[in-house]
């Protein structure tokens, strides 16, 4: 079994969001970077669990990013990836990124490609579906459970107001979310071992980009909270009914 896990670098969940260069760039100064939580907690950890159940499993990691992505991919190796490929490019275009990943995936002949359900920075939720289409593979999005049954995967995915169980023959592309696995902390053995695991850097293939970011905006500041006395909660109901008109 060969699993490819797609890893993305994102600002920490508590990072201050601000923009530079006339609001055309994310202000990255002083920002702490993490593995995108969906990629780490759910996609990668579930892949590690599959390897723990079957030692013959190989976990390869792929990321599209410049050299400043290396600490993130090393952390993913410390958690339990076997080897990693970094495609040396910086892009915010989902199609370009998916095309790079798909070209790696094609060469590697993977049984499973895992992504997180979205990144917490650009919230595209697009890479998994695009990679699947580029590889002409089935795609199960927003998976909350994943088990193997021979050469089939039994996957539970979230749908509007509930979930559905589906069965699909490998290979398959799966986007992972809460429920797939639990967050893990890398241990010292993993961290030491990660230093000697292969991290291959490849130059990007020539691919199209479909979109570009023209500018960023911050939402208008909130007017401030209107506090109602705890002695008079009826006033809150009146305000919601008559002023906000939401009930």
């Amino acid at each position: 079994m060969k699993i490819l896990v797609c890893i993305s670098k994102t600002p920490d969940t508590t990072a201050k969001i601000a923009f530079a260069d006339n609001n055309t760039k994310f202000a990255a100064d002083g920002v702490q970077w993490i593995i995108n939580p969906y990629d780490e907690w759910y996609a990668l950890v579930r892949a590690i669990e599959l390897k723990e159940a079957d030692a013959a499993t190989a976990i390869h990691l792929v990321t599209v990013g410049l050299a400043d992505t290396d600490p993130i991919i090393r952390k993913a190796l410390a958690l339990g990836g076997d080897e990693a490929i970094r495609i040396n490019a910086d892009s915010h275009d989902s199609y370009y990124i998916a095309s790079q990943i798909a070209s790696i995936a094609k060469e590697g002949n993977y049984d499973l490609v895992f992504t997180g359900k979205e990144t917490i920075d650009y919230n595209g939720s697009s890479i998994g579906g695009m990679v699947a289409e580029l590889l002409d593979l089935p795609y199960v999005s927003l998976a909350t459970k994943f088990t193997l049954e021979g050469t089939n995967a039994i996957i539970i995915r979230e749908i509007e107001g509930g979930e559905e169980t589906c069965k699909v023959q490998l290979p398959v592309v799966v986007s992972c979310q809460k429920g797939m696995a639990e967050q893990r902390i890398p241990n010292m053995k993993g961290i030491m071992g990660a230093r000697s695991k292969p991290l291959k850097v490849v130059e990007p293939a020539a691919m199209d980009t479909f979109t570009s970011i023209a500018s960023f905006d911050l939402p208008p500041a909130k007017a401030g909270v209107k506090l109602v006395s705890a002695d008079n909660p009826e006033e809150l109901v009146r305000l919601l009914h008559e002023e906000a008109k939401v009930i």
Partner: protein
Amino acid sequence: MSVLIFLDQADNNIKKSSFEAAGYGAAIAKQIGVAAEAIVLGTVNDDLTTLGQYGVTKVHTVKNDALNNVDAQVFTKIIADAATAIGATVIVFSNNFNGKAIAPRLSVRLKAGLVSGAVALPDTTSGFIVKKNVFSGKAFANVSINTAIKIISLNPNSFSVATTSAMAEVIEFATTITDAKVKVTSTDKVVGEVPLSEAEIVVSGGRGLKGPENWGLVTELAKLLGATTACSRPVADIGWRPHHEHVGQTGLAIAPNLYFAIGISGAIQHLAGVNRSKTIVVINKDSEAPFFKAADYGIVGDAFEVMPKIIDAVKKMKGIS
């Protein structure tokens, strides 16, 4: 040339988020001076001619029970065929579960740039620029789509739909349906409650409620308001409430008209999932709780004392004694 809108269904009924997509797609069609056409796959009970009221002139249908479960590969092929047949230059989805599964595939298939999570009509004064949520609701990006065909998926509850009395023409779209590789073996739905992703009012509880036995305060208010219930991450993690109720950065991101938070401190990760709500109410006994900074209305007080009074006041307002 036209705008093609994909309308998805659940249990043979078109979803609310799809009506928003219809209105949004029709507004784009008007803006660029082309017709708005829709496509509905599977068997639905809705009278599709009424889609005219959202500005759609033609509805293409493929009535086949095999399409009542969504397989992204099968759907992508049919929608791509329809888009090509009618010469669609813009294709609109709702950025819901099915939209997230299909739109990225279609983007590759048609070599059409995709913006997912749009929150406003595109700016077409020079080029084609779509505003979308980024950084989990903490900012917007204005994204230029540089391909001939454009795909937009609209965030639910971010576009107000105007309706008219027009009628749409319903046409069967002739196509071949490929076999689904993803076989759905069972579905499990919460019956009788509006799904969180579509709810207009959400009542949510956090650790401040001290235990699952106190959730009556949340569910009673929710029932009175026709709201859906939600919870913070710790509450789902301890098992007081089911995981599908967890809203926040790593749970579901929602944008209801009213988000009513009881005993939730408002950690930045929680805010990332609810900050697009139009009105936020916070009940918390800690006046320093960060949630008050993001709230529109608040009460600093003990939920166990405040909530019964609020519930009584809502009953009075609704004429229930």
